């Protein structure tokens, strides 16, 4: 019955629009949460006034400010490319949500190649960064864009290899199958996700995803102490907000949800007795856990250098993820998985 309703074309369209409509408010909410968590980690209060309760409307006010600001296009800029950038970065970020399941049937498209699709979609954003760097006619922008491109090439590979190990565990690339695979092992009523078997993979995923989102400590493309704002130096107003902040936060939520699905069991409840809580609550809670980890990392570490990042990716992460795949293969031969 439920499957029939969810299979209806109109319901599907409504779901897709619903997800898209939730994305922007979610960005604002995550922005506020990050401000508050960061502030408390740094012995500060963070925003306190806008909206009344603990400055809940701070990011909303910021958003309104961005909309009201002038949209400047530099004289020497390639105008069409320059103004296309926000669409490209946002598109790449938003496409991830298509395959993230919030329930066995509560998914926009249960693609057979879901894992592959997410990894492909999440790297579209860097094309936007390259376009921004090229079109701005600014040396700082160009350097930032090239750094972003080099970084993406280096970190896509460990990300793919970490995901490959999970796909091996589940024997499928479909995200729904992967979650169902994590419901197989039940210990004293607790569903055991892939995390304990894929702890190396999870760490690699966290590092590579942080690098892919260009968040600290891998934020060299926008390193504000060196390159001002990297590729987005010349951007102002709503274009700046969309191509930098909105894209970053939407990618961040998307990849965290992806990580939650891959390693933490996605919409699967923690315990068989907690089945009555809807899957979307579990998914959001697990996504929130990963988001908190990402925010924690951001406010703690200094930034790496570009060449050190490359070395780290090629000499540490990739061999480590290959070892992880080998371990996963060995695990598959044991009778427990």
């Amino acid at each position: 019955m439920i499957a029939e309703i969810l299979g209806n074309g109109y319901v599907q369209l409504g779901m897709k629009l619903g997800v898209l409509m939730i994305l922007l408010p979610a960005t604002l909410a995550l922005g506020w949460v990050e401000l508050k968590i960061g502030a408390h980690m740094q012995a500060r209060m963070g925003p306190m006034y806008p909206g009344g309760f603990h400055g809940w409307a701070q990011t909303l006010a910021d958003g309104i400010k961005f909309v009201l600001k002038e949209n400047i296009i530099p004289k020497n800029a390639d105008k069409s490319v320059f103004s296309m950038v926000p669409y490209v970065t946002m598109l790449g970020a938003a496409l991830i949500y298509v395959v993230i399941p919030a329930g066995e049937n509560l998914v926009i498209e249960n693609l057979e190649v879901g894992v592959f699709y997410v990894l492909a979609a999440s790297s579209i954003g860097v094309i936007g960064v390259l376009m921004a760097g090229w079109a701005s006619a600014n040396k700082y922008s160009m350097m930032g864009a090239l750094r972003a491109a080099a970084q993406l090439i280096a970190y896509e590979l460990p990300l793919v290899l970490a995901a490959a190990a999970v796909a091996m565990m589940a024997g499928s690339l479909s995200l729904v199958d992967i979650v169902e695979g994590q419901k197989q092992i039940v210990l004293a009523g607790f569903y055991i996700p892939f995390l304990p078997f894929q702890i190396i993979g999870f760490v690699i995923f966290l590092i590579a995803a942080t690098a892919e989102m260009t968040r600290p400590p891998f934020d060299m493309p926008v390193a504000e102490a060196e390159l001002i704002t990297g590729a987005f130096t010349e951007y102002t107003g709503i274009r700046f907000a969309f191509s930098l902040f909105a894209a970053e936060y939407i990618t961040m939520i998307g990849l965290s949800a992806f990580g939650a699905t891959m390693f933490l069991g996605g919409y699967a409840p923690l315990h068989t007795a907690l089945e009555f809580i809807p899957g979307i609550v579990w998914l959001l809670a697990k996504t929130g856990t990963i988001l908190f980890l990402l925010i924690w990392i951001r406010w703690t570490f200094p930034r790496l250098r570009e060449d050190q990042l490359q070395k780290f990716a090629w000499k540490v992460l990739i061999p480590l993820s290959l070892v992880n795949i080998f371990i996963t293969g060995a695990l598959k031969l044991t009778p427990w998985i």
Partner: protein
Amino acid sequence: MSSLIPTTDRWLSEARLSGDGTLRTEEMVLNIGPQHPATHGVLRVVVTLDGEKIVEAKPVIGYMHRGHEKLFEQRDFRQITNLCSRMDWLSGINNEIPASLAVERLMEIEVPRRATFLRVIMAEINRILNHLMFTGSFGLELGATTPVMYAFRERELLQSAMEMATGGRLHFGFIRPGGLKEDVPRGFVDLALRGIRQLQRAIPDYEDLLIGNEIFKARTVGVGLLDPDLAVEYGVSGPILRASGVPYDVRKAEPYLNYNEFDFNIPVGLHGDSFDRYWVLIQEMKESAKIVEQALMGLPSGSHIGQVPKRLTVPKGAIWAKAENPLGELGYYIVSDGDSRPYRMKARTPSFSNISVVPHMLRGAYVPDMVAVLGSMFFVVGDIDR
């Protein structure tokens, strides 16, 4: 646009092979500053880049020249200390001390013991305030946003103590030829001691946060090496010189005030890289805290200012007085023609000499290293340009 980035054809036709057989790429001149987040102030650096590698870096100074040395000539000897504190705005008291020392030596004024003790206390608190600022901002430049917030938390109590005594938080204007503007209020000793204790509790946190951090080490160890001989040639002084392994500190070498009565060490670095400079700063805070503690405990009673005439006329003569500013050796050369105003007053500020060695350190470094080097050269633009 086309002039910025060559087309493929043009690029291929212009591409040359460099000596080692690799493809030589175009160099690019990048203007960093005067308004740029890396230079915290209006320092301008013109760098020639080969990819991300710095071929040549040239600091351009003078964007904040306010003509202090000429202004000194228009002020009487009581007013110059107030002007001094505006040169290096992070360490006002330390700037005022050598100026009033010079006047006192020329006029042969005896400074009461209590005033000397209070000068030491304030100079060292000011040194801690300055070092906290730079340890924090260095982290910020490397992308770590937390150390600066912690540093400002610890600054607050010490800053309040200074405010309580002097009424100022940045420009104190508290040192007068002969002693101090006024005695410290009741409660100053307790508040200062509380601030010092809080700092001593917090320093291990800073060490955990950055010194023990692998990324911080990767970014700073071996970056921006400063050869001790080169440093001495350029007149580099202060924590930067000591990080290169030269144990020169005016407080020990030629003790002024009553620094010889206190027990403290001069931390010295081994390699002279950015990491050592940061490490020396942290260690110096510990030593300064020790001095402040000893001075607060042994603070004698008495007058806060010696016998000073109402109108300061300095006898004819010239004098050179120097002191250990938080950033290095600060000296004033005062020539008096017997008037109430200096005939000529020359300031030797540490940041000016320290920043002049930067081109040597930046050659061959990467752009991100430039931030690590500039951040660890601890300069104040007002102190460079005066």
